[in-house]
């Protein structure tokens, strides 16, 4: 199976990645090769097999719903590319 350029563009958009044309060609080949390889899982019979998302055996680990004041809240905001009055600044959504 070979991904088309349109498919790569769609994945890139979903991934929020701007790609050059050269990258689109390269990734189409490389990702197709990986997808072919992982297709090998179809040899395994998984009929009636449960899914495993994690392996600790832990279930529903709760903590108290309490507000904890960070002592470096202002510094944290300053780690953003742009901030003003202790708020993160960015371009408008619409």
């Amino acid at each position: 199976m070979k991904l088309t350029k349109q498919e790569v563009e769609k994945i890139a958009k979903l991934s929020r990645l701007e790609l050059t044309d050269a990258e689109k060609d390269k990734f189409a080949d490389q990702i197709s090769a990986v997808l072919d390889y992982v297709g090998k899982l179809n040899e395994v019979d998984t009929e009636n097999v449960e899914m495993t998302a994690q392996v600790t055996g832990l279930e529903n680990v709760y903590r108290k719903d309490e507000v904890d004041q960070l002592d470096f809240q202002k510094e944290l905001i300053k780690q953003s590319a742009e901030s003003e009055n202790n708020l993160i600044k960015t371009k408008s959504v619409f």
Partner: protein
Amino acid sequence: MDLNQLTIKEAQQKLASKELSSLDLVQDCIERIKKTDKKVHAFLNTNFDQAQKQAKEVDKKIKKGEHLKTLEGIPCGIKDMILTEGIITTASSKMLQNYKPLFDATVIKKLKENGAIILGKHNCDAWGHGSSTENSDYGPSHNPWDLERVPGGSSGGSAASVAADQVIYSLGTDTGGSIRHPASLCGVVGLKPTYGRVSRYGAIAMGSSLDQIGPICKTVEDSAIVMNAISGQDKLDSTTVPKTVPDYTKNLQQGIKGLKIGVPKQAFVKGLDPQVKNLIQVAINDLEKQGAKIEEVELKTLPYGLACYYIIMPSEVSSNLGRYDGIRYGYQDKDAQDLFEIYTKSRAKGFGAEAKRRIMIGTYVLSAGYYDAYYKKAMRVRTLIKQEFDSAFNKVDLLLMPTSPRPSFKIGENINDPLTMYLEDIYTVTINLAGIPAISVPCGYVNNLPIGMQLIGKQFDEETILRAAYAYEQANGWNKIKPSLK
């Protein structure tokens, strides 16, 4: 002997007996780094001033005859995937080039509580993506056994630095082999703990159901000492398990008489270098001579481990790297015209090729129409893998396999062929899918390049693999041989 060549255990004893000062030890490591790191490139950032200050404080304590904690006064390096307050932490990516964490990862907090001295941050493949450190945005590290070759990855800087005696030990992270693979290629000891044993809080997330932090050390005993310091439940990581942490050093010397070691038939197949296979066989014979019972076991799912991993891991990567939006922290592209472009341009320039590939593979296998065929399928195969390990451990106490299929390769040799590079992890990824512990311990050389063997344990049974690795190491002493740095 230069002090930088000491193990943790030796340094502990010499500091306690006032035979050496922490400052001398730190100084020797700093000198070694200055002398060798142009060749090895194990470090991205150093923390020498702070380290020297800390060492002087430890020496005051020694002078006063105060009791020292287990890692007190002993210098280490930390993989750049682990957050260190006030020391730039980049994950070897341009995305986080100037990122200075405001808090320590739990493991760093624990190391500091035990008196550890951090000399700096170790290079790795960016975001932990790779088996050679060639994916670092700051250039590769070099293998001290042959500087034209890779140290393995992704914790390659850590393993190379420990092998080159720049630091006494390092912490790495392991999602699919990233501690064990470079440990194998550099001739040092690397332990990936059971998932849930060590807190992941403050580790830059790669695959959250797979990631673990663990030690890279010169000896098995040192690995046990570091495990004692970093293990345990953490309320900041809800996947850590409320289980008592044993003293990992306690049973090391008990020997392996009667221990049942399983050797999976499926591990010795095409793709395994015949000389590596030979060394593993010699090691198996050695363990048998020491009283272990060797049994062949079936792991029919082993050949599917890598395919399963290359669905689950990129899925988790695509989700975890979603947080790098160019806004809250990390790189922002200033040419962006609107919000969407802030995302797409910042991520295009901040991420390297491998991160982009994995984000896109993950996005694809999770996308509508493909989710069932790829992601759900992989989660089902993961169940079968886990079940097969469980049933193997009903019959044997531990399993033995190669760590890597071949010795270190030349820098540049695999860089244009991602799939071949992925095959480096064929023996390690399955362990992460099952969430069980494994250690890589040196077992000889092929053409003067080190090879590691992998001992795999039951969930939360780090003690048995440490004990077996210790028995093997004591009988063989490969770790006494030092690289030439040529």
